[in-house]
């Protein structure tokens, strides 16, 4: 089933987390809405294989990678397409050209960096856009270097460079919330210094504002770092209770004051009666 929506509702960071965690394969099409009319629309295509980003392009003409190679003067368009004729169908073009000695491993890395890391990271700046993920689209061998990156690694890089966070304002963990680690041990992803500092607090009990105090950083900054840790699937937001609990008859709602402090078990016959009663209403 294709998934469609607007980035203002489901941000690119959330989408990448979803695609990585769901080990999704397919094509993510992002149509940036920068102005009005057709001129204000610009398409971006990102291909995923098992939750990893394998290629990106601004068109579906399958010429993006060849053009990039040509621009760097490594191989003419004609030569590249002639060599690629001999590739086994489905083999990433980059790997095929490398096998034929036309490109080096280092060149493939540079290509992947410009094609995926640079282009995709820039998309985090988009204020709004329409997106569609189609899991039925086959992988584009002609656009693939053969390298890939976990979607969340790209998210981390994209969000680190992000200047304007206003589009994500209501997605950020609350300053009264804590973070709790959801991985075993330490993150495999390379974190920067402030991310490590915040990571040290992922015990589920220290609020982001308290972390900000300890690190002497603005709380907004800590919320942004916390969001990065959350969308890269390292930590989860745990809301803390705003006020201290003091159970007085005034504060406790009347419905509940009749109830015991802890839920006591209900009997099997009660449950059977209840289910029987509800079945009558179905």
């Amino acid at each position, binding site marked *: 089933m294709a998934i469609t929506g607007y980035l203002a509702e489901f941000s690119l960071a959330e989408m990448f987390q979803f695609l990585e965690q769901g080990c999704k394969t397919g094509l993510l099409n992002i149509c940036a809405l920068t102005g009005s009319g057709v001129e204000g629309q610009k398409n971006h295509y990102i291909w995923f294989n098992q939750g990893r980003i394998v290629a990106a392009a601004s068109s579906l003409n399958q010429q993006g990678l060849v053009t990039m190679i040509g621009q760097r003067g490594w191989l003419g368009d004609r030569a590249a397409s002639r060599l690629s004729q001999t590739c086994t169908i489905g083999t990433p073009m980059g790997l095929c050209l490398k096998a034929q000695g036309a490109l080096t491993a280092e060149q493939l890395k540079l290509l992947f960096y410009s094609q995926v890391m640079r282009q995709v990271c820039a998309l985090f700046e988009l204020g709004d856009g329409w997106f569609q993920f189609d899991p039925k689209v086959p992988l584009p061998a002609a656009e693939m270097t053969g390298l890939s990156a976990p979607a969340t690694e790209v998210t981390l890089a994209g969000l680190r460079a992000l200047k304007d966070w206003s589009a994500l304002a209501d997605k950020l963990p609350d300053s009264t919330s804590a973070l709790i680690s959801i991985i075993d041990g330490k993150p495999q992803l390379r974190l920067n210094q402030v991310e490590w500092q915040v990571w040290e607090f992922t015990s589920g009990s220290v609020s982001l504002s308290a972390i900000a105090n300890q690190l002497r950083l603005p709380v907004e900054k800590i919320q942004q770092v916390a969001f990065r840790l959350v969308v890269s699937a390292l930590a989860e937001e745990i809301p803390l209770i705003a006020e201290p609990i003091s159970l007085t008859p005034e504060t406790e709602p009347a419905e509940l004051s*009749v109830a015991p*402090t802890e839920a006591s078990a209900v009997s099997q016959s009660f449950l059977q009666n209840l289910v029987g009663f509800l079945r009558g209403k179905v």
Partner: protein
Amino acid sequence: MEIMRLVVTGPVGAGKSTFIRSVSEIEVVDTDRRATDETLMLKKRTTVAFDFGRLQFGPEMALHLYGTPGQSRFDFMWDILIRKAHAYILLVAAHRPHEFRSARRILGFMKQRSQIPMIIGLTHTDCPGAWDAENIAIALGYLDANRCPPIITVNPNQSASVAEAVIALVQHSMQGCLV
């Protein structure tokens, strides 16, 4: 009186109030009767911040339903509600991916404080743009199907559908730690 308490939680607009309204039948209590806890309860009903519904299905048996407060602030009220509850259902509007993060936040809060049985009810599955259950599970962070709570579809506007959802929740908790 034997009472089972269920909490209905979820982001704003998920359908909590509608859900509780569809299943409860709060009768007018004869005020001449001696002031039981229950009459007190009904008088104060309008002053409290959360939805409350009741379903009496036997002389000594009742189901109480509590809806968590609308705002995303997690105050002491939430804590009281979950500590006294036997089970809860998290309602998630399937067509509003905007709210998935807020649903996750609620889950984080609940899981931290309570181990009671829970299920997830997808509402608004009849609306355009609704995500399917498998994808919503991923978006909520349930990556291992074996460790995912039961996910059902429910339309809070239909009392039969709500009755089925409550049955699913009750049956799920029967398999759990209640008895």
